[in-house]
């Protein structure tokens, strides 16, 4: 384990914003109230502020503008050790989904998830990353997908969907407006979304394609905190899209994928793109407003919407899914809290691919479960393949019965034929 590399990375990660955060924190402990890992386990180590302790120590020892003076009187915290990194690995990777709910309750407005992410980068430098994530990263680099879905498999899945819907889907087609990428979970588990997209785009008259070089939106580099991996994976999408000369890349129903491509991508590759990134929810809403996707009938089930953290709270897409559901659902009901204060599914931020965290993830779902028990919906709609997969598993574990739907698929069902 390379402790000094971890310290070095964390030191270099402390910019003006991180320094302000670490300096302003008064250890008031309110963030604990926001954390579904703490709420459902009662384990005090899961208080978000405690997860930042490594970062705090590095800041106060190395970057605090008065650290030099404080060192003279022995007022700086101890240097990090191997034991610390080992101990915090659980806190940084297993018990944090980077959902960022703690920021809402923080009187100092500290972006705690952002700091956890920066700590993860230190963990990567030291080589203290859970196997589930390193494995996913290796598969992503080798095969193009963290779940090991090779281009041949992808082609086969797309072909099946084309056959099922009777709509031709042309891959690698240059000069179209939109290039769609998908999350690994969608390609493997929820491939009906491909057919749904085909149906919607056909109705709206949108020209689109998918690339066999870059069909994968999931960016495990972002989740584990490995900038090099993240950059490689983003570059694939950027290169493929620019090669095809599309105007837009459609970010799919996937939380981190949107952050990775839209918010972090340009900073990773070091330039802005020659195309624009549009989230599928934004695109659907735009088409809906333009009247290009007329719908027929409404779903009469009691539906609710689960806000994926990275798309809503940390992505800024809040009203779009509600407007879309407004058009196709008769009996829509909000969970409480919702929108930017929503409660995470428990499996974001790489937690779902981290087998060490499986038990914790199911426990953390307890908060979501309480929300659902209050509202008692017939079905839950969401816009993230990972949330969907995590919640389906948790719903099974808790012996509840409730389908979890993709908003795109649901919309496609109500498109006028």
């Amino acid at each position, binding site marked *: 384990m390379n402790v000094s590399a971890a310290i070095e990375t964390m030191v270099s990660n402390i*910019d003006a914003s991180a320094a302000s955060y670490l*300096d302003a924190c008064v250890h008031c402990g309110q963030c604990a109230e926001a954390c579904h890992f703490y709420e459902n386990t009662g384990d005090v180590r899961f208080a978000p502020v*405690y997860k930042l*302790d490594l970062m705090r120590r590095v800041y106060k020892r190395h970057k*605090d503008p008065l650290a030099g003076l404080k060192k003279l009187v022995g007022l700086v915290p101890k240097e990090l050790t191997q034991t610390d990194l080992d101990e915090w690995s659980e806190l940084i990777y297993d018990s944090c989904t980077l959902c960022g709910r703690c920021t809402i309750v923080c*009187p100092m407005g500290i972006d705690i998830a952002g700091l956890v992410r920066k700590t993860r980068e230190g963990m990567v430098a030291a080589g203290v990353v859970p196997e589930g994530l390193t494995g996913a990263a290796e598969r992503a680099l080798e095969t193009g997908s963290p779940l090991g879905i090779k281009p041949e498999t992808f082609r086969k899945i797309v072909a099946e969907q084309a056959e099922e819907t009777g709509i031709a889907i042309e891959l690698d087609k240059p000069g179209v407006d939109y290039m769609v990428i998908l999350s690994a979970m969608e390609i493997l588990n929820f491939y009906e979304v491909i057919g749904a997209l085909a149906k919607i785009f056909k109705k709206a008259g949108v020209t689109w394609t998918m690339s066999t070089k870059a069909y994968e939106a999931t960016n495990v580099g972002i989740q584990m905190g490995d900038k090099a991996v993240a950059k490689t994976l983003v570059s694939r999408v950027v290169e493929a899209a620019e090669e095809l000369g599309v105007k837009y890349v459609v970010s799919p129903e996937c939380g981190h994928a949107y952050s990775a491509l839209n918010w972090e991508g340009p900073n990773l590759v070091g330039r802005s793109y020659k195309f624009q990134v549009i989230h599928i929810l934004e695109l659907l809403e735009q088409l809906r407003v333009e009247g290009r996707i007329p719908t027929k009938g409404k779903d009469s089930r009691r539906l609710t919407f689960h806000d994926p953290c990275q798309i809503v709270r940390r992505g*800024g897409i809040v009203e779009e899914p509600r407007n879309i559901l407004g058009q196709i659902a008769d009996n829509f009901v909000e969970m409480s809290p919702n929108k930017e204060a929503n409660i995470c599914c428990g499996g974001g931020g790489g937690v779902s691919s981290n087998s060490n965290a499986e038990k914790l993830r199911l426990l953390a779902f307890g908060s979501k479960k309480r929300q659902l028990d209050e509202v008692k919906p017939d079905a839950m709609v969401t816009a993230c393949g990972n949330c969907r997969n995590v919640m389906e598993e948790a719903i099974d574990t808790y012996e509840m019965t409730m389908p979890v739907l993709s908003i795109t698929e649901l919309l496609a069902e109500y498109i006028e034929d």
Partner: protein
Amino acid sequence: MSFLEFVEGPLWYVAAAVFLIGALWKVVGILRLGRKADLSIPRASATAGAVRSQFLHFVPHGGFPFRTIYHLTAGYMFHIGLFLVLLFGAPHVIFAQNNIYALPWVTMPYWGFVVAAQVAFAGLILLWVRRISDPVMIKISDKDDHIGSWLTFLVMLSGCMALQESVVALRATHMLLVDMWLIYFPFSRLMHAVTFMFSRGYTGAFFGRRGIVP
């Protein structure tokens, strides 16, 4: 030179200088670390987000006010009481007018001072009590948290002990503790009184670009 003259004279000037230069040094030092330019395309204004965030975090939103009601109440009691006493307490105003700048200023009546001090005391004690009785707080609190709380408490206690303004030694004790507090300030979490603005601001700017301020 009497002890009172010392703590209200040379030591006061040293303490005030450490406080001002230290805090300034710290703020400049933090801001100088800078941030990389964000190349992503903003959805909305970062500046607007930074401003909004300043106000948003005065009260926890999104279903939290109730869950954190204890802390919220105690926190506001302490801070409001403290600011009232500090800014409008007659002895403080007179001291500031004599030693800093003779700005015309309003002062609270004696009973107002006492009530504000009581509110501040209750708030501070409640906050500290939470620190020693809540498992989360026990886990996350460090020396700095306790030193900061105690020093502030002692400043307040010595202040209220000198309330009758009839004993020089009590005034001197209060002043000595104030000087210590000022010197401790830039080196500690007490700095949150300044850095909270930057903390909120950076988060607000970061999220403001994304079109949402959590």
